């Protein structure tokens, strides 16, 4: 079944001319047609563009041209990444007609690498949420159980990869928006170090925290996609000018002697017992493979959510001021300018976005700035220092990705309860560190996520440990029933 191919497998078969890029894209599009009515991962499917791009790759290969890194590989992009001439909505009414005049840098790099864009995926409006239920359009479903959420905010990208609709996808992660849906959907998701992947063309939510990263079916693919997107970019002033290592080169280095810190705060009462057990078992595997583990304490962990839900809304309230009905997106008719602004924003934004704009506006407003924004920024320093201190002694920090497995759609109504979902992922963004989530077991047939956190720019170390674990566990080969793994497709008909 062609659509189940990993990036590496597909590249090999394309190289050997066993399959063509067009066949691969057609298989992916058939899969989208077959399952996306129930998964609802896509906001936009770019069928004709995809077929044309795939045919172009085949023509180039036939003419003997050197093939770039991802030539002919079907991909999906979170709908907050600007794609030239292709609808980019942020799953918001306020941008539901927006066609960017340029590509985001990460998108441009993937297009240059020959990847074939299949479409744009659903998200919580403006990436604000942990379940994709805040999309203004529809809720994406978890391929492992369609009654459950895929996580969020990059739920569409995670679900599209888990359901084999594409080989890989990109998402963005501000407080866990790649790692938590990767955990819920049983795929690999990486948030690179802040500054590693250019944010140019990523529609801004909280600029000091946002980072683009890949969703893939296994760890090797994660390294391959990182090779394509991790690049210095002068168009993003927070892009760090440094060489991109070859992330695939060190994958099989093993974990012998690798020092792993295990922070007790991430295994505390708020974390499901089943999740703790699965993560502890993964740790035992890494230790059996030669890693050295030690329990540590990161006492400021508990403050992460409070810091995040002041800083991220503060930055969002400023970033989202640009949606005023003047330059792009939705405009409400009104007699004067102020009324036009107010009506446009009130009708265009959904309630979670409004809530965060309000919270951020308040936290930055005169008289409250010191008490909220400044205080949060100071505690952010403490969290960052605490990680830096731990990394003097350890190469990696190992935790669960999320406190539970995927929860049923419509069951978390209170905003604060929803925010608590990000407890294990938020501190990583506050400190700007790289981290990866990968499947480490199942509870009631729902995937559990293992989070590996690394030193700044040490993505290669994370990937090496993740690869060692993956080789040993074999978990990554499990597929949701949706894919009918083990049942040849022809026999299903």
């Amino acid at each position, binding site marked *: 079944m062609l659509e189940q191919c990993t990036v590496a497998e597909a590249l090999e078969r394309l190289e050997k001319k066993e399959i063509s890029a067009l066949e691969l894209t057609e298989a992916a599009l058939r899969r989208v047609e077959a399952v996306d009515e129930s998964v609802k991962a896509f906001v936009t499917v770019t069928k004709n563009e995809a077929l044309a791009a795939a045919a172009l790759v085949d023509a180039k290969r036939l003419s003997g041209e050197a093939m770039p890194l991802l030539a002919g590989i079907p991909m999906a992009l979170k709908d907050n990444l600007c794609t030239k001439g292709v609808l980019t909505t942020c799953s918001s009414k306020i941008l539901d007609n927006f066609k960017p005049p340029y590509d985001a840098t990460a998108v441009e790099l993937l297009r240059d690498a020959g990847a074939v864009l299949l479409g744009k995926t659903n998200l919580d409006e403006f990436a604000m949420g942990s379940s994709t239920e805040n999309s203004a359009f529809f809720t994406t479903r978890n391929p492992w159980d369609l009654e459950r959420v895929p996580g969020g905010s990059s739920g569409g990208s995670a679900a599209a990869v888990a359901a084999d609709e594409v080989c890989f996808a990109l998402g963005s992660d501000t407080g866990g928006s790649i790692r938590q849906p990767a955990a819920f959907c049983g795929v690999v998701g990486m948030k690179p170090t802040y500054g590693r992947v250019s944010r140019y063309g990523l529609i801004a939510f909280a600029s000091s925290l946002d980072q683009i990263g890949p969703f893939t079916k296994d760890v090797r693919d994660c390294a391959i996609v990182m090779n394509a997107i991790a690049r210095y970019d002068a168009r993003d002033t927070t892009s760090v000018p440094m060489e991109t290592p070859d992330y695939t080169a060190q994958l099989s280095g093993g974990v012998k002697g690798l020092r792993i810190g295990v922070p007790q705060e991430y295994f505390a009462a708020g974390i499901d017992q089943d999740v703790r057990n699965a993560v502890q078992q993964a740790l035992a595997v890494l230790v059996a493979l030669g890693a050295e583990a030690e329990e540590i304490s990161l006492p400021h962990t508990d403050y992460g959510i*409070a810091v995040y839900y002041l800083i991220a809304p503060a930055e969002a*309230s400023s970033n989202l001021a640009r949606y005023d009905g003047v330059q792009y997106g939705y405009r409400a008719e*009104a007699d004067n300018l102020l009324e036009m602004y107010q009506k446009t924003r009130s009708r265009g*934004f959904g309630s979670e976005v409004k809530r965060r704009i309000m919270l951020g506006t308040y936290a930055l*407003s005169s008289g409250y700035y010191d008490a909220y924004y400044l205080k949060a920024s*100071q*505690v952010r*320093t403490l969290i960052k220092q605490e990680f830096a201190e731990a990394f003097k002694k350890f190469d990696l920090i190992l935790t669960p990705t999320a406190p539970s497995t995927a929860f049923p759609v419509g069951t978390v109504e209170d905003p604060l309860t929803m925010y608590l979902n990000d407890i294990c992922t938020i501190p990583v963004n506050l400190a700007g560190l790289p981290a990866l989530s990968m499947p480490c077991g199942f509870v009631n047939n729902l995937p559990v996520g293992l989070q590996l956190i690394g030193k700044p720019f040490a993505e290669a170390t994370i990937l090496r440990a993740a690869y060692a674990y993956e080789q040993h566990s074999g978990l990554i080969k499990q597929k949701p029933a949706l894919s009918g793994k083990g049942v040849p497709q022809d026999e299903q008909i």
Partner: protein
Amino acid sequence: MKLTSKEVAHVASLARLEMAEDEMEKFAGQLNAILEFADKLNRLETKDILPTAHVLPLNNVFREDRVTPGLESKAALLNAPEAEEGMFRVPRVIE
């Protein structure tokens, strides 16, 4: 209660949002719950701690002062709700 409905109305006007009375009250409740949760930060002494605005040791990133191609005005206006003579058109500002 940290935020009264009246303050919520003020913040909404700063954010250029308008809200119905019942929405205002719902927001007041939710925002207060979040702010009360954030109160735990006051347990920490932060007097001599420098704030972190972003994590990178990058400051004052400059580029050469050279003209490079940018977005053309036609492309910039493609998504405009209303445009005229190469400009964004908005409701009358000056009487």
